[in-house]
């Protein structure tokens, strides 16, 4: 006997992600799913952002890590308003079902932004939505120019690409323009910012992006309250 099913295999994940999202919306929280290959600088970006925006934005962080709690400790020291560590126990990505229990005890009402640092990996995290507003992908100039072509889904699904470690450009043969071109082949119109989490170069543009997204977020779900400019 044949049974026609025609169902999205990741439907269960989508449903939990929708529940997470409803919770985020209730708190008018901007949620970013931060992704990159291992070591591109996700935690460095968080540390720097937390220090630079202290007093301006209340940022919570969920750290997804296969094994250690090192990154959670780093962002805690940098002044995160709330930090939660998820050990994926070997899984190479976070999914919505791992995020949901973490949200139960979270002070979401006291945060402006929640950043979910995904496991370092350019393939699997792109497959699993967690309820985020935006995926943000980080790619270090040391990774070369071919990453968007090799991992198209990640670059296609992201709203923002941060090209990190530009302080190292003098030591490399890589051209920023070539990285941009490769990314926009897969995702024409992709917003790209070149940054260094070491020197801070380019980061003000990232902070401006964050604040504009937060404002949009609040307008979109604030139902008249907090409505600033038209």
């Amino acid at each position, binding site marked *: *006997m044949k049974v026609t099913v*025609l169902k999205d*295999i990741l439907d269960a994940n989508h449903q939990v992600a929708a529940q997470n999202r409803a919770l985020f919306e209730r708190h008018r929280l901007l949620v970013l799913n931060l992704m990159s290959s291992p070591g591109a600088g996700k935690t460095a970006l968080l540390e720097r952002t937390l220090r630079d925006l202290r007093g301006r934005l209340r940022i919570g962080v969920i750290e997804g890590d296969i094994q250690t709690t090192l990154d959670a400790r780093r962002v805690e020291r940098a002044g995160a308003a709330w930090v939660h560590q998820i050990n994926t126990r070997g899984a190479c990505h976070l999914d919505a079902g791992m995020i949901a229990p973490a949200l139960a005890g979270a002070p979401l009402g006291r945060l402006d932004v929640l950043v979910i640092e995904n496991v370092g990996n350019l393939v699997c995290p792109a497959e699993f939505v967690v309820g985020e507003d935006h995926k943000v992908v980080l790619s270090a100039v040391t990774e070369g120019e071919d990453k968007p072509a090799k991992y198209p*889904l990640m670059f296609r699904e992201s709203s923002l690409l941060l090209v990190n470690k530009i302080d190292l450009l003098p030591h490399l043969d890589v051209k920023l323009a070539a990285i941009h071109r490769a990314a926009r082949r897969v995702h*024409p119109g992709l917003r790209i910012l070149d940054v260094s989490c070491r020197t801070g170069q380019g980061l003000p543009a990232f902070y401006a992006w964050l604040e504009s997204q937060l404002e949009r977020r609040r307008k979109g779900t604030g139902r008249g309250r907090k409505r600033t400019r038209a």
Partner: protein
Amino acid sequence: MHETSIIEELLAIVQRTAEENRLVRVTGLSVRAGEMRAVVPELMQEAFTVMSRGTLAEGATLEIESVPLKARCRTCRRIVRVEQFAFFCPRCGKALSEIVSGKELDLVQVTGDKGDSP
């Protein structure tokens, strides 16, 4: 590898489908995976073989059909095949924003045996 997570979800849906349709054994599954989804068929097969052991779907064949990536050009309205993930219309050179196929990851069909009792 995300193939493991995908197979885990797949087996859960198969189990439910089998119960709803009173299947005592599942002999075949067909899945459609879009080109954008970066699933490696060999890894899917391996994960399925290992993870289906002891389930209704143990020994079933897993058929994975790859779905080509296609997008609609907003300018010339044509649906074009996206080659090598370059999202530009080969005719007018404009950016392709609307994907029409190639992102799906669906369980399409389950084949199995009904129990003897009516």
